[in-house]
C-alpha cells in the first residue's frame, strides 16, 4: 500500500508542477469569487442618475426581506403586497418610480413568489393584473398553485404512476409557505451551474494528460516496462484523477457557498424550496436542496473525470481530450428539449452539463425504469457514479494494453 501512496504522490507532483495547472486553478478560484461578488459591483441608475450602488440595493432588499421573514404567505400578506403594488402608477419601468421604492419594494420578494402562480397557459399575469388581484384570488393562492401543478404534470409525457407520485409529493409541502430571506441560497443555486461547469473544465485541463501525457512524452515506455507500471500505477493514476476532480469540485463549491453565504446572509437554511421555485413539487428545504444540488454537481464532475481519463488513455494528445470534453460540456447547453419528449429530455440531463443545472436536479420529470420511479436528484448522481464505475475499467485496460509502436 505504501508504494501506491508514493505513486499517487508522484502523480500529483506531475500535475501540480505544471505552471499551466497552477494558473488555471488560481483563475478558477478568482472567477468563482468574482461571480459571487460580480452582481454587487456597479450602481443602479434611475433617469441617468445614480440611485444606489448594487451593494446598497442588496443590503436594502435584504433588510426588507428580513422584516417579512417568519410571516406566512397567506391571503393577508398577499393582499398587503397587492395594496403596496397598487400605489405604483402605470409605467413601463414601474420599479423606477418613487412609489415602488417607497411602498412596493418591501414586498418585492412576495410579489416574485406569488405572481407567477396566476399565470395562465395563454397569458402572463403581469403587474397591472396583480394590482387588481382580489381577496378571493389571494385566498385561493394555494388552490391555484395546486391546479397549475396538476395541469403542468399532465402536459409531461410521464406515466400516470409518476404523475400520481408527484402530486402526492406536492401535497406533502407545508402550506401556507413561511417566508424567509433566502438570497444566500438562491444565489448559490444560480452560481452553482457556472461553478460546476468551470470545475469540470478545470479538472479536464488538469487530468487530460494523466495518460496521454505519458504517450506524447514517451515516458510510457519506461512506465510499461516497470514492475508496477501496468497495474498499481494505473490504479494510482485513476485515484489521482478522481481525487483531484473531487478536490477541485469541492473547493470551488465550498468557495461559492462560503462567499455567497457570507456576502448575502445565512438566512433560509430551513426554508422551503418553494420560496425560490414556487412550482417545485419537492418538500425540500433550501439547505437540503443546496446539499442535493452540490452532490449532483460533484458526481457530474466525477463522471466527467472518468470520461476524461478514458479519453486520455485512448488518445496521444491531451489537447484533443480537452477539446472533446469541452464539446461534451458545452454543446448540450444549446440543445433544448421539451417535457413531452421525456426520454430525450431525461437523456440530455444525464450529460455532465445537464446534471449541473438546477432545473434538471429539481425537475418534476422523473426517471422511470421498469416501473421504478426515481427522483432526478437521486437518479442523476447514481447514474454518474455507475457510468464512472463502468468507464474506469476501460481507461485502466487501455493504458495497460497500450503498445509502444
Amino acid at each position, binding site marked *: 500500500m*505504501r*508504494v501506491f501512496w*508514493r*505513486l499517487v504522490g*508522484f502523480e500529483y*507532483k*506531475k500535475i501540480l*508542477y*505544471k505552471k499551466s495547472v497552477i494558473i488555471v486553478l488560481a483563475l478558477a478560484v478568482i472567477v468563482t469569487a468574482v461571480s459571487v461578488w460580480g452582481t454587487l459591483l456597479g450602481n443602479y441608475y434611475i433617469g441617468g442618475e445614480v440611485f444606489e450602488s448594487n451593494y446598497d440595493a442588496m443590503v436594502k432588499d435584504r433588510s426588507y426581506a428580513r422584516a417579512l421573514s417568519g410571516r406566512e404567505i397567506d391571503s393577508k400578506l398577499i393582499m398587503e403586497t397587492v395594496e403596496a403594488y397598487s400605489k405604483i402608477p402605470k409605467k413601463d419601468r414601474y420599479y423606477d418610480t418613487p412609489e415602488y421604492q417607497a411602498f412596493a419594494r418591501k414586498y418585492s420578494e412576495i410579489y416574485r413568489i406569488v405572481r407567477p402562480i396566476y399565470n395562465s397557459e395563454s397569458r402572463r399575469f403581469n403587474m397591472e393584473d396583480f394590482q387588481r388581484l382580489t381577496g378571493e384570488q389571494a385566498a385561493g393562492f394555494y388552490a391555484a398553485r395546486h391546479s397549475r401543478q396538476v395541469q403542468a404534470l399532465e402536459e409531461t409525457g410521464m406515466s400516470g404512476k409518476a404523475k400520481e407520485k408527484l402530486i402526492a409529493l406536492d401535497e406533502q409541502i407545508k402550506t401556507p409557505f413561511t417566508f424567509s430571506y433566502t438570497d444566500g441560497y438562491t444565489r448559490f443555486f444560480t452560481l452553482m451551474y457556472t461553478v460546476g461547469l468551470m470545475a469540470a473544465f478545470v479538472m479536464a485541463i488538469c487530468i487530460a494528460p494523466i495518460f496521454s501525457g*505519458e504517450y*506524447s*512524452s*514517451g*515516458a*510510457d*515506455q*519506461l*512506465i*510499461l*516496462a*516497470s*514492475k*508496477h*507500471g*501496468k*497495474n498499481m*500505477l494505473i490504479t494510482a493514476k485513476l485515484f489521482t484523477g478522481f481525487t483531484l476532480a473531487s478536490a477541485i469540485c469541492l473547493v470551488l463549491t465550498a468557495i461559492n457557498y462560503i462567499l455567497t453565504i457570507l456576502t448575502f446572509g445565512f438566512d433560509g437554511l430551513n426554508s422551503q424550496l418553494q420560496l425560490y421555485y414556487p412550482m417545485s413539487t419537492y418538500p425540500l428545504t433550501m439547505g437540503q436542496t443546496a446539499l442535493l444540488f452540490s452532490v449532483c454537481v460533484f458526481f457530474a464532475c466525477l463522471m466527467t473525470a472518468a470520461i476524461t481519463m478514458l479519453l486520455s488513455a485512448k488518445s496521444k494528445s491531451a489537447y484533443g481530450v480537452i477539446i472533446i470534453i469541452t464539446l461534451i460540456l458545452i454543446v448540450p447547453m444549446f440543445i433544448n428539449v421539451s417535457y413531452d419528449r421525456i426520454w430525450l429530455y431525461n437523456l440530455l440531463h444525464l450529460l455532465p452539463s445537464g446534471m449541473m443545472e438546477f432545473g434538471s436536479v429539481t425537475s418534476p420529470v422523473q426517471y422511470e425504469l421498469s416501473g421504478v420511479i426515481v427522483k432526478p436528484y437521486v437518479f442523476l448522481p447514481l447514474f454518474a457514479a455507475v457510468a464512472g464505475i463502468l468507464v474506469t475499467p476501460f481507461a485502466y485496460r487501455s493504458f495497460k494494453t497500450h*503498445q*509502444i*509502436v
Partner: protein
Amino acid sequence: MELTLDRVTKQYGNKIACDRISLTLRRGVYGLLGANGAGKTTLMRMMCGVLAPTFGTVNYDGIDVSRENYRDLLGYLPQDFGYYPEFSALDFMLYIAVLKGLSKVRAREKSLELLELVSLENEAKKKIKTFSGGMKQRLGIAQSLLNDPKVLILDEPTAGLDPKERVRFRNMISRLGGDRIVLLSTHIVSDVEHIADTILIMKSGQLVHKGTLEEIIGTIQGKVWECSIPPSVADRLCERYPVINLRNEGKNMFLRLISEEKPCDCAVTAQASLEDLYLYYFSEVSEG
C-alpha cells in the same frame, strides 16, 4: 538465466518489422547491429513486453515477458523517451524507483549512487528541463539500473554521450554483463566491437548473423582490400564497391573497400574489422 525468443514476428499491415526471430540470450553482453529500419527497436520493445508480437513468444526462464515478475527483473533504456521536465533528476530517479518497487530508503540510496555513477551527483536537484541531451541520456542509463536488473536492454545507450563518457559507459556495461543479460543496440560499431561477447546483426527484420566478433568477422575475412590508386580509378571503384575509407595520398587516393574479388591489381587484403562487416551487410541499405 535465459531469455528465449521463439519465432517472434511483428507485422504492421503489409510490413514485417521482425520476421520469425528465434534466439536464446544467456549471461553476457549482446550487441545488436542493424541499419535504421532493420527492426532492432521493435525487437527490443517485444523483449521488454511493451509491444506484443504478432506471432511467437518471448520468455525469461519460462516467465512470459508480459508478466509483472519479469518486469521486476528488467532494466530498459528506450531510444527516445520522455522525462518530466519539471522534475529534478533525483525526483525522476525516485519516481522510477517506486515504479520498480524499491523501498523508500533503498530508492534514495540507489538513486544517489547511480547519479554519482553517471556523474550527475551535482545536478541531482536540478530540473531535467535544464539538462543537455547527454545529461538526459546519462540519467536514462541510471534509471535503467535502479532495480539491479537481471535483463538489461539498452536501445542506443551511447547516443548523445561525449567520447569520454562513451568509453566510461562502455566499460560499465562490460562489467554489468558479468552476471546478467545485457543487450544493446547501437550505430556506433566500435562500442559493440569493444564490449559485446556476442554480436547480433539484423537486416530487414531478420536476424542475419549471430556470433562472436571473430566468428562474424570471419565471414568477410579476405574480402577487405586496401589500395592507393589514381583518382580516376578510385572514382570507378567507389561506384562499384562499398568503400569504408577514402583519403588523399599525394597524387593518389587511398581506398579501403570490400569486394568478393581483388578490385584492382595493386590492392592488398587487410585485416577485417566489425565496421567493414557492417558496411558489407548494409551497403545496399546505405546506398538506398
